[in-house]
């Protein structure tokens, strides 16, 4: 078994000094040779050969389900390959368990932070590698060491704070700092900016460049083209489990990458159709609640009302308040001209409001239940005849949504957790298409969703508008709300601070209003 003896050497050295295998910059540090992964008959990754060069930032792009997560799991030892070989520093290695990957200096920062929210930042950074003396943890020493690492990286974060009290973006930075201080040679980022604000993204990018400067090889997985072009030296494209090409960043462009990824051109993504705005569906007057204050806006049939702002600006709270999740503290809501009191979620649904919430994982889906049950969840009372559910109708509706929305699954019985981000979003949408609504609130509908699915979702918006519905679109991704909204409202610190008609203001203007400088 090649490579195994080497592992034991590494382990005996301890973690932090581990894996300092000097590979000159620009030489291959990790090579995949015809690496393949099958789950039963399904080929999640077709034999792929990609070479990662020491000290480069290597971006990997591809739609959801293209095989990116499979690739990460293979390289971090989370799953075992079906065939093919991995060469690390020129020698074939097993990489069939996470400990081996970590011992060699291969680490990953995941999109969803996998740390302990109840422990302090410092405790998380030292988790599994605590500073001990005489068998007792030296808490203060760890806090001080963690603080100096954080300060050194330029993060303005307190090491003594509880991790859970930080924003998701800040937690992501902690996860990165944790990986950075463990002698990492090869660091994989899986969509790190999905939940980050611009400032946080900028901090992260500085950190990535700095790590690169220290000779660390970075694999950067993202849906955001502008990030790929800002950071990467080379980019590899995956499509349907196939490695379709690797380019030097200087020798390619958006258009080529997107064509490689989805076989579709960029113009086809932002799909905006203008409809004659109809009657007013919803009007709020000075609505206030937990996290938002004095919001007045209207939504008419056939129009998209965009809400832009930084994370925490109160847009999602406004949506939840409107939906009856939290009681409003002041202000009025008018539904089709009639004053209403939306006391709970059921009331909102009965009026005709649908909410695709911000977090699919925490609010949108029952992940360990089948797709079909998720899709039918809002309409079981409608599917019930007498005491029992009409099974035929239940199956028919689930299958129809899966077919219409092109959810990539062999069956409605597959668990929602097994789906990629884009497909999960489609399940959430399918739920509300089943139920039907007059006003659809989409909160961050395309976070963690690939370009192809994004385009499908935007086209679906047009279909809803055409049928006389109105849409509230909440997004932290400016191009999205900017290109799609008939009217764009900017939120800052819980208040609506500015409103613009379609493309009436520039990107810079909107951004300035959102940040408030």
């Amino acid at each position: 078994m090649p490579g195994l003896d080497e592992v034991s050497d590494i382990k005996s050295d301890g973690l932090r000094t581990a894996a300092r295998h000097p590979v000159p910059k620009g030489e291959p540090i990790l090579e995949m040779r015809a690496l393949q992964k099958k789950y039963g008959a399904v080929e999640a990754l077709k034999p792929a050969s990609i070479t990662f060069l020491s000290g480069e930032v290597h971006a990997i792009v591809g739609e959801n389900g293209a095989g990116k997560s499979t690739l990460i799991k293979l390289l971090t030892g989370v799953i075992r390959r079906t065939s093919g070989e991995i060469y690390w520093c020129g020698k074939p290695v097993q990489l069939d368990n996470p400990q081996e990957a970590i011992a060699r200096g291969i680490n990953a920062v995941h999109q969803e932070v996998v740390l302990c929210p109840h422990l302090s930042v410092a405790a998380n950074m030292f988790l599994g590698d605590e500073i001990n003396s005489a068998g007792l943890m030296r808490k203060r020493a760890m806090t001080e060491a963690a603080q100096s690492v954080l300060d050194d990286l330029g993060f303005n974060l307190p090491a003594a704070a509880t991790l859970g009290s930080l924003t998701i973006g800040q937690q992501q930075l902690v996860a990165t700092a944790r990986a950075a201080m463990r002698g990492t040679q090869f660091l994989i980022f899986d969509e790190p900016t999905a939940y980050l604000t611009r400032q946080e993204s900028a901090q992260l990018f500085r950190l990535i460049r700095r790590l690169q400067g220290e000779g660390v090889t970075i694999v950067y997985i993202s849906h955001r083209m502008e990030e790929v072009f800002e950071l990467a030296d080379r980019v590899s494209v995956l499509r349907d489990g196939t490695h379709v090409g690797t380019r030097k960043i200087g020798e390619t462009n958006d258009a080529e990458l997107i064509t490689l990824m989805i076989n579709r051109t960029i113009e086809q993504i932002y799909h905006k159709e203008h409809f004659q705005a109809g009657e007013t569906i919803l009007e709020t007057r000075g609505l206030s609640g937990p996290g938002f204050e004095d919001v007045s806006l209207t939504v008419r049939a056939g129009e998209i009302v965009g809400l832009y702002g930084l994370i925490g600006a109160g847009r999602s709270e406004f949506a939840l308040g409107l939906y009856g999740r939290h009681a409003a503290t002041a202000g009025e809501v008018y539904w089709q001209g009639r004053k209403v009191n939306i006391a709970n979620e059921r009331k909102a649904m009965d009026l005709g409001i649908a909410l695709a919430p911000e977090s699919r994982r925490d609010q949108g889906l029952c992940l360990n239940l089948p797709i079909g049950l998720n899709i039918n969840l809002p309409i079981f009372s409608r599917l019930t005849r007498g005491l029992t559910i009409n099974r035929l109708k239940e199956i028919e509706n689930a299958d129809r949504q899966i077919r219409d929305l092109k959810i990539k699954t062999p069956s409605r019985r597959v668990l929602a957790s097994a789906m990629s981000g884009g497909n999960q979003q489609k399940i959430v949408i399918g739920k509300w298409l089943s139920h039907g609504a007059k006003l659809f609130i989409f909160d961050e509908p395309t976070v963690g969703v690939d370009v192809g699915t994004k385009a499908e979702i935007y086209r679906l918006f047009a279909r809803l508008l055409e049928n006389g519905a109105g849409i509230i679109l909440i997004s932290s991704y400016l191009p999205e709300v900017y290109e799609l909204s008939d009217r764009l409202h900017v939120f800052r610190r819980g208040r609506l601070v500015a409103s613009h008609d379609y493309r009436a203001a520039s990107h810079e203007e909107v951004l300035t209003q959102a940040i408030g400088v």
Partner: protein
Amino acid sequence: MSAETVESGTGPAPRKGVSILFGLTLLGLLLFLWLLLGLATNSFWTPNNISNLLRQGAMTAILAVGQTFVIITAGIDLSVGAVVGFTSVIVAWLLAAGVPLWIAIILTLAFGVLIGAFHAFGIVRMGLPPFIITLATLTSLRGIGLLITNGSTISITNEAFTNFSRADFLGVPSLFWMVIVVAIPAYVFLHLSRFGRYLFAVGSNSEAARLSGVNVHRTIYLAYILSSTCAAFVGLLLASRIGIGNATQAEGWELQAIASSVIGGTSLFGAVGSVHGPLLGAFILATINNGANLLNVNSFWQRIITGVLIIVIVYFDQLRRRGAR
């Protein structure tokens, strides 16, 4: 839960197929045990012993079904054993006070409903963890029962009531018929009605269920009321069987019920479970006890065997789930 959601790999397991398959392997295990005991002893396959076995398993089975509803919502009901003891006192006390039998039965079941509603109230309104609120009733219900009886037992003189548990119908003990009486509506409720779906949804992600218009509070009330009512029903059966009301009866039955449920494939993390699973689990446990008695195995060993069995079955269940992923 977190382990479930972190692994979002491909190659998922169609849930329904797995549930049926698991039911079949459990049934296979039960039949295998019966076959084995039939070969090892002369007395196992006697009508007397089979009736005895069915009676022994019946009460745990009913408790386990109620318990399963609660566990599916990612909760736990530790009080069911105490509820059994308490309600046996209630029915004995009512009968001793000259209350007509059918009214005594209805009132006793109503106590079950009340206890379940109290649990749900504690969870939903007071924000107490299910473990805590049901632990509190576990001890206090026994206390109240002992206060009522002043520490002694109340004997039941109503013969119609006490004869019921000894009676047979179509050659099958009436206690076992009670399992069927509970299991069929339970199956319809959990697997065929929307309320069953809501139990799973609340257990999987209560926030997502709420935002999809599911009345989460009502669902939790439903689960705990059903569990306590099943327990009160078992209290009636037990009182009928032993002919007394005694608050210290059914000690540890809550653990038997939880064990049966878990052996039957229910996940303590919620959102996974069935009605047939806990039934099979209860009768597997009953068979082991029965078999151990027939084989003259020390009763201390029975406890150990039961513990080992729980580990083995649940371990294999998890292996299989992981393999299917």
